């Protein structure tokens, strides 16, 4: 075989040349069009039958602030209940015990299979089924006194959320390699301890993006509790416009608050994701 020759001729030296920037005419054009359309929409609303001074005035009205506080309290508590139930049900679903498995599957089937607003109404009207509730011989009360709008909303939203969250959690647990369970067992851990110490922390990394999604959904789903008189944001906004007939203005007030809350939640989710990403090499870092 011949020795390798020097580099062949006919390939010019490009080392001094820069890559040119393309003008991207179409991007500029489409962006300009979108700005125009947005400007037209804003102009239409500005000139429409909206008294913007009402929006400004009610944005920080006491009743509205109370409403958003109640909305957030309910969203956080119901989500906490949902996550708790979701973890328990996902663990039951993945257990070798057929009784636990069936109960878990039945729960998910029932609460995913009926509309949330129907469940809220059922909880709120539980007194029609059981006039008194309690533990026989120990304690009893009238159901109408116990089942306040707050409790009915918490149970309705939380238990419904649990059915969805259990599937998110189950997906997260299934995403953890089986070798992790085996390694945990090999150092003597039982199933529950292995889940708590080894599997769930790794599953959390996977489930936080969908859980963030679910929580944002929950913030808005609390507005359904307005039908059972829970004084959350939309319910309070409605009460105001029943009195002063400024319907659109108050709906805009409520909409702005929902947007603000969701905008704040997104960076919070990023912080959580980073917390649970310990020890992993990530895309985009």
């Amino acid at each position, binding site marked *: 075989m011949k020795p390798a020759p020097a580099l062949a001729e006919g390939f010019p030296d490009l080392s001094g040349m820069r890559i040119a920037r393309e003008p991207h005419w179409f991007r500029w054009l489409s962006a300009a069009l979108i700005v125009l359309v947005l400007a037209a929409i804003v102009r239409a609303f500005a000139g429409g039958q909206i008294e913007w001074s009402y929006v400004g005035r009610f944005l920080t009205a006491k009743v509205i602030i109370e409403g958003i506080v109640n909305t957030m309290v309910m969203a956080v508590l119901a989500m906490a209940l949902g996550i708790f139930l979701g973890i328990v049900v996902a663990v039951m679903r993945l257990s070798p015990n057929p009784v636990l498995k069936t109960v878990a599957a039945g729960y998910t089937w029932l609460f995913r299979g009926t509309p949330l607003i129907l469940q809220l109404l059922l909880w709120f009207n539980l007194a029609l089924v059981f006039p008194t509730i309690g533990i026989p011989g120990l304690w009893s009360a009238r159901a109408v006194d116990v089942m306040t709008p707050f409790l009915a909303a918490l149970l309705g939203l939380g238990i419904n959320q649990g059915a969805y969250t259990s599937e998110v959690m189950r997906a997260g647990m299934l995403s953890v*390699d089986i*070798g*992790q369970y*085996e*390694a*945990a*067992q*090999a*150092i*003597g*851990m*039982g*199933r529950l*301890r292995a889940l708590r*110490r*080894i599997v769930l*922390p*790794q599953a959390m*990394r996977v489930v936080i993006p969908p859980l963030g999604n679910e929580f944002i959904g929950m913030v808005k789903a609390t507005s359904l509790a307005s039908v059972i008189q829970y004084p959350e944001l939309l319910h309070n906004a409605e009460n105001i416009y029943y009195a002063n007939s400024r319907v659109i203005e108050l709906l805009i007030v409520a909409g702005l608050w929902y947007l603000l809350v969701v905008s704040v939640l997104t960076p919070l989710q990023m912080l959580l994701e980073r917390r*649970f990403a*310990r*020890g*992993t*090499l990530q895309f985009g870092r």
Partner: protein
Amino acid sequence: MTKPLVAIRSVTKNFGEFQALRNVSLDVWPGEVMCLIGASGSGKTTLLRCINQLAAIDAGGIWLDGELLGVREHGGRLHRLNERAIGRQRLKTGMVFQRFNLFPHKTALENVTEGPLQVQGRRSDEVRAEALELLRRVGLSAKAGSYPAQLSGGQQQRVAIARALAMKPMLMLFDEPTSALDPELVGEVLAVMKELAKSGMTMMVVTHELGFAREVADRVVYMDQGAIVEQGRASDVLGAPREERTKAFLSAVI
């Protein structure tokens, strides 16, 4: 008269139609280093997993340190032990996996201390000192604070060995510990295992590293189709095999 540390008697294990172990009987003596060789699917990994009860046997019995594993005799029948009792029995064995299976969300040091702290409930300062000593023993003192993803395969496997040793097992099980490693990293793991063998640890090693078997093993067991075909001193089984199947396997791998 010493007793075997592990006594395996007429063990059978099926996965559906597939017979992974057929009537296997074997003794492992205290301080012995045993290498299990054979083609994939021959049952050697399954045998280790049965000893560590990651798989439950279908028939026969395995005794570890004189204690019957996984079941209890009562009224002429065998009853499966509950999870807690099985977990207690597992503490006598340490397992090293082919794919390391380190906990990725914990540092090297936390991987080693997890078992002693969480399962054995021991004091943290004492556990930490022991874990640092184990990491030193496997040559990874400088990596105590590193996460598994920051370590090479060889380093991860050495942490995994330290993690298993932290439980102070009587028996170490190695399931193809170097098969998932780049060739240049195999030596560092084998060196740790040699040192461990020299220290008197009883070891069962499923391996394709015949050089390691020749050098370190007190006994080599050749398995095929779920049964033990031939066993004996490493120099005999690897140097002058009696069985045709052993000869065929050895000529295929060397």
